[in-house]
């Protein structure tokens, strides 16, 4: 009964915890409402179950697993309190699947605990143990110490029942350690008492009698702390007395039993226990070789009567077997056999194996002959099978732990692999990111380099133009010097000579002198001619405008020579290149250079025609080749074309590219000046 209540508490706690996840979605409101109604104790139990079932149905319509699980757990709780265990089991089987699917640890733990409890009550101890074990693992992981503590009671009990004393002891010790983290409530103290009592019983079974006494003393100390520790104290004392009897300290044992018996109103509180105490007192006195046999027999008979009247099989078995042993020693074989048979029958009925064994031994001892042999062999057979069973169960427990541990190891391994995968993908992402940065940086650098290169070429052309200008200036200066020298050395000298001669002849009137004078006058004529020539030279500006034209011509000449192209260059003489900005000239130069390169690389042309024309202050540069042409849409993205486009845009030029397959390409750029 006590464990039943503790499970209910556990289920309610679990539900409240998961209720925190309640969604405020309106469609969930009705489900929530139904669940609340199902918890309302003012309704009839059957009504509450109907509400809970409807909540489950509505939840299933939402197809939200967490909602379904919550409603089903609510229903499971109602099945439990109405003790409808079959339904309770079935719904928990559904819940466990959902909980694992959702990986909802708290639900997983609680549902495991519920199923453990179900199998425990059905005495399917191995299944129960498995569920409890899983529940404890989960509770421990979730640090739900209280729930863990409560579950450990069931586990330790199962282990004790299946005679896995060492396992049970370990579980109990673990629980006792855990109890230190928990509040010292009445219920927890009671649980703690259970563990100490269990340890005492186990130690007794293992014949560690001093340890057993210690444990029972501790259990008694806990009883002192409890407000309502009377029952527990009685049980503890009884158990302690049993240990002393085992220790053959019969006097001490008897004192303890008699103390218990003195308890007020014990008979009314717990008649079978009362009967048991009577039996124990009688048997202990018999062991003490008390001579008052009638008193002993009286005690036995009373104990037998009480337990028989309340029909408590366990106390009845205990009394019967003790009486049988008593009568055997008194040589009243018939009575001894009667009680032995009685014990055997009840033990058989209740499947109490250890009692069956003991009663079989007794019977073989009492009857002798063939019957004794038969009982003995039955005893051996049963004890062997029991031993095997115990072993099998212990193995099973070990296996459950082992398997869980193995799963844990596997999980750990998976987690490790996941972590490795994460690290690996992290590194991969970082590497990719770095790679991306490097690539973009490289592209940027390339672009910068390209711009720099462009600027350098622009500068080069500019310098070329400047040097051309220098050359022109130098040429002008030279020409000036040449004219000056010609005037100074040639014409002036001759004029001077002629003047001097004429001057000298001026005085003479001789015929000869007149003749000579006319020669000098002719000389003056020839000097006139020379001066005219110099004047003409001065008038023709032999260098004006030739600079840029020459640069372009040199460019085209050298490039077409390298590309083995024929070329023609037309330059409209109306274009005054000196007045056109350097920027425009530089871009024209580069466009021509780029176009020639493109023609060489792609066009496979024989000749190229380049012309500059001017009309209405717009200079039109045309570059026409007779090459293979190209598809405009495809070539749009080529670097060459891109450069030309951007350069044309820079000088606000209007670019037009025409190309036809096998007919060549023409590029025209119209730039306003």
């Amino acid at each position, binding site marked *: 009964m006590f464990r039943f209540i503790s499970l209910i508490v556990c289920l309610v706690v679990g539900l409240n915890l998961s209720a925190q996840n309640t969604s405020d979605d309106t469609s969930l409101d009705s489900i929530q409402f139904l669940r609340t109604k199902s918890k309302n104790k003012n309704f009839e139990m059957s009504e509450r179950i109907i509400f809970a079932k409807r909540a489950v149905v509505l939840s299933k319509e939402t197809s939200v697993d967490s909602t379904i699980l919550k409603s089903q757990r609510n229903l499971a709780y109602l099945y439990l309190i109405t003790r409808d265990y079959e339904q309770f089991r079935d719904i928990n089987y559904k819940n466990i699947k959902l909980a694992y699917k959702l990986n909802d640890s708290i639900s997983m733990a609680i549902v495991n605990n519920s199923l453990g409890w179900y199998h425990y009550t059905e005495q399917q101890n191995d299944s129960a143990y498995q569920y409890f074990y899983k529940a404890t693992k989960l509770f421990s992981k979730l640090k739900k110490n209280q729930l863990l503590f409560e579950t450990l009671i069931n586990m330790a009990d199962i282990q004790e029942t299946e005679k896995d004393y060492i396992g049970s002891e370990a579980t109990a010790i673990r629980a006792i350690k855990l109890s230190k983290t928990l509040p010292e409530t009445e219920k927890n103290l009671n649980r703690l008492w259970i563990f100490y009592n269990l340890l005492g019983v186990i130690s007794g079974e293992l014949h560690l009698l001093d340890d057993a006494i210690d444990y029972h003393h501790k259990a008694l100390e806990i009883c002192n702390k409890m407000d309502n520790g009377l029952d527990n104290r009685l049980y503890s004392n009884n158990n302690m007395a049993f240990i002393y009897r085992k220790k053959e300290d019969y006097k001490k044992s008897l004192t303890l039993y008699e103390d218990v018996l003195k308890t007020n109103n014990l008979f009314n509180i717990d008649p079978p226990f009362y009967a048991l105490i009577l039996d124990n007192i009688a048997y202990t006195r018999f062991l003490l070789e008390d001579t008052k046999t009638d008193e002993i027999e009286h005690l036995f008979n009373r104990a037998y009567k009480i337990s028989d009247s309340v029909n408590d099989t366990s106390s009845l078995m205990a009394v019967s077997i003790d009486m049988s042993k008593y009568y055997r020693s008194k040589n009243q074989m018939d009575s001894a056999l009667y009680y032995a048979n009685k014990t055997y029958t009840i033990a058989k009925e209740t499947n109490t194996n250890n009692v069956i064994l003991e009663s079989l031994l007794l019977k073989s001892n009492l009857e002798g002959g063939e019957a004794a042999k038969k009982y003995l062999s039955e005893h051996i057979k049963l004890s062997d099978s029991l031993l095997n069973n115990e072993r099998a169960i212990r193995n099973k427990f070990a296996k459950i732990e082992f398997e869980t541990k193995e799963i844990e190891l596997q999980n750990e391994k998976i987690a490790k692999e996941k972590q490795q995968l994460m690290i690996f993908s992290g590194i991969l992402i970082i590497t990719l990111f770095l790679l991306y940065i490097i690539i973009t940086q490289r592209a940027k650098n390339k672009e910068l380099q390209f711009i720099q290169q462009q600027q350098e070429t622009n500068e080069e052309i500019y310098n070329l133009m400047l040097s051309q200008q220098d050359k022109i200036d130098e040429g002008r200066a030279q020409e000036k010097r040449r004219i000056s020298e010609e005037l100074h050395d040639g014409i002036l*000298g001759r004029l*001077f*000579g002629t003047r*001097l001669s004429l001057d*000298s002849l001026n005085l003479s009137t001789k015929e000869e002198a007149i003749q000579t004078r006319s020669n000098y006058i002719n000389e003056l004529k020839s000097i006139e001619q020379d001066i005219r020539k110099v004047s003409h030279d001065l008038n023709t500006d032999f260098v004006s405008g030739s600079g840029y034209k020459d640069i372009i011509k040199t460019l085209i000449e050298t490039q077409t020579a390298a590309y083995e192209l024929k070329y023609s260059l037309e330059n409209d003489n109306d274009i005054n290149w000196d007045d056109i900005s350097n920027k425009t000239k530089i871009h024209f130069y580069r466009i021509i250079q780029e176009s020639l390169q493109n023609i060489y690389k792609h066009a496979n042309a024989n000749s190229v025609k380049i012309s500059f024309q001017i009309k209405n202050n717009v200079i039109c540069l045309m570059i026409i080749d007779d090459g293979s042409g190209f598809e405009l849409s495809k070539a749009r993205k080529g670097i060459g074309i891109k450069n030309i486009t951007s350069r044309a845009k820079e000088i606000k030029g209007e670019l037009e590219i025409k190309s036809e397959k096998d007919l060549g390409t023409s590029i025209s750029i119209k730039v306003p000046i």
Partner: protein
Amino acid sequence: MQETIRILMTDDHPMIIEGYQNTLLSTKKESQEIDIDIANNCDESVNYMDKASNSDHPYDILFLDISLPPSKDGKMNSGEDLAKYARSVLPEAKIIILTMFNEPYRVQNILKTINPEGFLIKSDLTSSELASAFQAILFRPPFYSGTVNSIIKKTITSDIVVDSINRKILHLLAQGIKTKSLIDHINLSMSAIEKRKKQLKILFSVGDSNDESLLVEARKNGFI
């Protein structure tokens, strides 16, 4: 008594030599016999001089132009070089420099290095002047053209004293050579040249650093 005057005329323009000849022949005195050798370049001139120096009758007068085609061995580049040479091989010969150059610097340079007996500027020259110059040089040298005389006079009357290097700097600047290119022509460092230019500007009381005003002032004072 007949007197033979031996003359070597060096000028690259035959017309000019013809002019000289015509003038001299038509204006010589009755007693004078004129014997003229003609050289059109430095080499010819040097040949005549060498020949004359060994003969009994060396030249009495040398007519030398300044700008002449240089000699083939590159030793003689101008009339100045020929004049120097003549001074060494024909110490008795009187030298008449006839030139188109009339810049004070060149004129002063020639006066200083050659100190010719006659210095005639072609643009000034008339045939009568040449005739009188010829006679003057023969008997009471020196004889200078009016232009040369005025240059000399200007330099003497000016309070400003300008040494030969500073004169050269002014001359080069006047020819349009830039300050930074002066080191190619003068054996001085840039800073020294700058320093001299500064001194010149103070000398000619030109406050600002404009080269143009310096040249104007120098020209006014007859240094260029």
